[in-house]
């Protein structure tokens, strides 16, 4: 089958890309658009490093066909910070030492962002449940939990 031109809005910029049916969203984001913040991991949906946000939900870009995203708005790790300032979750990850090698970090931050956007003050169990589909092989999961919790502190303070 021929390539088909689709329109992808990634981080509020609209791209017209020619994609092949078997290209995943991850392939297109990394190889065609050059946004390499989103990582390629297991490729079978168990590690979560390729997480991006579509319609407010964290999804795995390695198991999504690019063609199925025609006309959709996608947020990747590059889209949550600006040149001047980091996203509060990113700041919290740095402040709490929730990063070692950093490979899983974009996926975990995007997963956390989807969680906090939906539920600004999650309890420990809710954080664990949301992060269950991500892996940090440097074994930093406690720090990661703490970082997400601290990032949600402002919302928690507001509530109380």
């Amino acid at each position: 089958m021929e390539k088909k031109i689709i329109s992808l809005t990634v981080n509020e910029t609209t791209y017209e890309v020619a994609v092949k049916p078997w290209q995943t969203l991850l392939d297109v984001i990394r190889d065609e658009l050059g946004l390499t913040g989103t990582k390629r991991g297991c490729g079978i949906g168990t590690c979560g490093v390729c997480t991006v946000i579509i319609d407010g939900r964290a999804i795995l870009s390695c198991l999504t066909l690019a063609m199925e995203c025609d006309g959709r708005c996608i947020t990747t790790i590059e889209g949550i910070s600006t040149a001047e300032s980091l996203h509060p979750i990113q700041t919290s990850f740095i402040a709490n030492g929730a990063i070692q090698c950093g490979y899983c970090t974009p996926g975990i931050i995007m997963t956390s962002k989807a969680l906090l956007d939906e539920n600004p003050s999650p309890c420990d169990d809710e954080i664990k449940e949301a992060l269950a589909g991500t892996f940090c092989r440097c074994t930093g999961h406690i720090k990661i939990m703490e970082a997400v919790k601290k990032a949600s502190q402002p919302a928690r303070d507001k509530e109380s």
Partner: protein
Amino acid sequence: MRLPRFEYRKPSTVEECLNLLQEQGTKVRILAGGTDLLVNMKYRVVCPELVLGIKGLKDLSRIVPDDKGYMSIGASVTLSEIAAHKEVAEQFPSFQKAVQSVASKHIRNMGTIGGNICLDTRCWYYNKSKLWRDAREVCHKLGGRQCHAIKGSARCHAINSSDTVPALIALGAKVKIIKKGQERIVSLKDFFQDNGAQPTVLTPDEMISTVLIPKENGKSFTTFMKITMRKGIDFAMGSIAGYLAENGKAEGELRLVIGSISSAPVTLKKTLQVIGEAGLSEASVERAALTARSELGTLTNLFTSAGYKRHLAEVLVKRALDELREMTKKSRRV
């Protein structure tokens, strides 16, 4: 891992989709969430020539809370949508628990109920890369005449590991199967055949359109639990769903379904006879749990040993019946 090459079409109506299925049947695979199909395609376990994306089909993505005595859920409703649906949680808590327990949040955001019901069976010798698979003789699942899991077996023993299916069978759910110009409704219990290579009764030109869960008139108690290596992501090593109508003792009023230990979910019979004769008591639960061990048929050593699977069944039956017993006790107290 890269995907194999294929053609992609996105039908704009269900009719168009059914026409394509009718014309090209065996060469086609339906793509909804992609969390099972694309993984299998990456492993080259399935290599369809044409992939039909059905996610945009509105007719398949609705939850109708009251549809002639049933709650009807479209096949391409995502698991996250079901888990968050208020009426599902109120009326079918065990089903909601099962949905909520599937894999991870990412996968529930993508995966659909139709996909979870049609989840392909899994096996150590089959869900491997092509290079690895090619080192052995072709097995039943790939069109050969061998089973590597049980040597000499005449059929495939790959395991059905859907979590939602046992919960749905225990609730007496049905599925609406459609093909060009026709539809049929099949009880989910009869939808599965105990053959890993051909796990469901679906023919290549058919697809599931909706899941129908009967709404309860009287009071009932339900339970679902599963045992996994880790809480997130992993497929169940064993799961159980239970249903008990209030004051129910007779057949049909108590149901227990064990999932993830064989090619089809096991609906227990002898085990329930024990309860039917003696009622739900501490002693009868113990006996029922022991009986469960013996009515599981042939088990494989896939993922866990056959002995462990029998042990799991015993433990799960005991836990499920205890929970149901506790629920009935509580409701009598109120």
